[in-house]
């Protein structure tokens, strides 16, 4: 009898424990989401800092925006919906980086395009320069002397700097 009472009490505790675990897990998940989304958003007070990193003293925006973010995540809005809400409320400058759609895609493409074009250009330059004829064509080899010898010596000195 006593054993069954204890067992009954434990049985009563199980749903409560499960609920607590779920709440804790949910809380943990929410904080991760707040952290993730909060790092995609800027504080719009003009401090140029990421929302969750804004430590601007007396900032009238960041506290409110963090509360809005927490509220949206807590009520279960999807990441995309939360971000879209912030864009509609505060404008596109609220995003930390340009989107990867439309005109803004150029922002992302240009550095990589420049890298590819630059490498291509250097390779072409190297190829062209390799084919470039020397300014002086060798004819019958003769002993170098005088001013020409000085020029060669000067060049050798420059190239070895000994």
């Amino acid at each position: 009898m006593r054993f069954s009472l204890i067992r009954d009490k434990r049985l009563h505790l199980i749903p409560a424990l499960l609920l607590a675990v779920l709440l804790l897990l949910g809380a943990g998940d929410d904080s991760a989401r707040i952290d993730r989304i909060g790092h995609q958003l800027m504080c719009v007070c003009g401090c140029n800092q990421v929302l969750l990193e804004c430590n601007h003293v007396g900032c009238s925006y960041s506290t409110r925006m963090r509360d809005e973010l927490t509220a949206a995540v807590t009520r279960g809005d999807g990441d995309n919906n939360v971000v879209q809400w912030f864009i509609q409320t505060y404008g596109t400058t609220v995003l930390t980086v340009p989107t990867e759609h439309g005109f803004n895609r150029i922002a992302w493409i240009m550095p990589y395009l420049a890298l590819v074009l630059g490498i291509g250009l250097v390779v072409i330059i190297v190829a062209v320069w390799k084919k470039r004829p020397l300014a002086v064509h060798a004819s019958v080899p003769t002993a170098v002397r005088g001013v020409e010898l000085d020029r060669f010596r000067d060049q050798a000195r420059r190239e070895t700097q000994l």
Partner: protein
Amino acid sequence: MAELGSFVLLLALALSAYSFLAGLIALIRKQPGSERLSETARRAGIASFGAVFTGAVILVTAAFRNDFSISYILHHSNRDLPLPYKFATLWSGQEGSLLFWSLLLSGYGLVLRLRHKTDVRLFAHASVVIAAVQVFFLLLLNFAAKPFAVIQTAVPPDGNGLNPLLQYPEMVIHPPMLYLGYVGFTVPFAFALGALAMKYPGEKWIHITRRWTMVTWGFLTCGVFLGAHWAYSVLGWGGYWGWDPVENASLMPWLVGTAFLHSVMMQEKRGMLKTWNMWLVFGTFWLAILGTFLTRSGIISSVHAFAQSSIGDWFFWFLIISLGTFTFFFVKNRSHLRSEHKLESLISRESSFLFNNLLFVLACFTVLWGTWFPKISELAQGKKVTVGAAFYNKVTIPVALLLLLLTAVGPLLAWRKTSFESLKRNFLWPSLGALAVGIVLVGLGVRPWADVSYFYALVAAMLAALVAFTVISEFIRGGRVISGHTGENLAASMVRLWHRNTRRYGGYIVHFGVALVFLGILGTPFNREAEKEMAFGDKLALGPYTLLCRSYTQEENANYSSDLAIIQIFKGDKQIDTLYPESRFYTASQQQQHVPAIRSTLKEDIYVVYEGQNQDTGRPIIKAHLNPMVSWIWIGLIVMVFGTILSLVPNAAPMRATVRDSKEARVPAHAAPVGAGD
């Protein structure tokens, strides 16, 4: 005092204008008597330094004497401001910083004009260019941003005070360093434009400007890194580089200037890249002015823009005029800039310089692109966008890693052509060492497949190790050869090796410093942070540490009142330190500022910020960051500066060895080039 200040600035403008016009006429006319006219221009340029210097002294004296009748002093100082910051008032606002810029420029001009006998005609050309730039800044100071403007109302009993963010010891040296770098690049530009205008024969102008460029680069490097250190120590967000437009403005000329420092060797050694070098010198100068335009015009918003006004228009037109002038002379005299040699192999020092330049310029372009994109977007689609740190981190890291690879590989490639044997000999052990570092890091738990930032960190660590090992192996290999020749020990031989070619081995030390900087940066993905409302006795876990809130206290002095948190740091059960993060309220400016407390070790920084009180609960908020490896960035800077200083030391006279007999010759045949070249 204000009248005297205004007068000397007007005098400086007249002297600089005369120096420019008389110098220009003397260069153009080339008639008898032109030398005398040129000499008067030179002396006027020297005298202009005296006038600008007097103006700067008057402004600083006004700050020390609390002369609040001068508007600039009223807005940037107050009676209780500590003395070092009163000195820093000179560069704390728009007008003062322009005066400081002008002072440094006239200082550089003074040195240049005093050394004119090195090459009278080239220096006369450079002097005219510097005078022209000086005229621009003095026009600003006399007509657009007057540092000695007086207030029209009754003089208040106290000033508004200095911006709290600027009341930090580093602010006394960071701006001068940065400005010495910015302004200093005017000198190589002046020589380059002068050489282009006069079709200067040979590469002597490059040799003359080399030291100027290296000194200037050293100052700019210090300025950029001190700015990062200031941001880390003062702004309280736990990072050191936020890709803010003002930070970008300092980085862009540094990147192009660094490209020039490398590619100029191609011109010195092989007579190549003459056109490219001209544009790099101009680009560095132009970007320094562009950065000032960006931050002063308000065209791009920045948290660091302490001095914004309408002088952006002036800078805009100066940028246009300087671009037009340089382009004119380039088009007119470009035939003078033909390369003397051809490229012989893709695997050569020349190629590595080409790729090095490409990457530096590309990095600069990326930063410029990101800085301007909000404006471009506004013009194109009518709405601004933000380009934050995440963008720059994503697009610049691959370029930075490629540059690090070239830093390791480039110096060991031979001029003209590198053989496979040479590659194997130079890179085998450093490559194995770098590989071992990678394996150890994976063993320690760095999982490159888990996150792209870990992958970058691992690659950066291996490349930084490769740089360090190649530098060390170069010193050891060269030292051993000299040791075998002279009988000295290895350390003494390495010193002798450096002294035989200071630029090359000083440069290697700079590269070693760069590797250390990367070591510091690659800790970023492993940063951790925690935040908590902490009452007395509350604990906050941060990695292996526990932060215990012992108490809160208050302090007050004439300049500010301060709330301090007393936070004890525990590792396990052992207390290792106590930190005192502050929240200050500055009396004169009525502004509040957080002052983080930092415990720095070689392994990591514990960075604690007292963020004030929760407005709802009234409980104090403590935020803590655990930032691995950050100290190595500042150590890397010290090494880079040390290497720069070493590379400025003149080379020792070359050793002359006479080989009497093949049997007596102790130096092996391949030892001859040790220490030679760059």
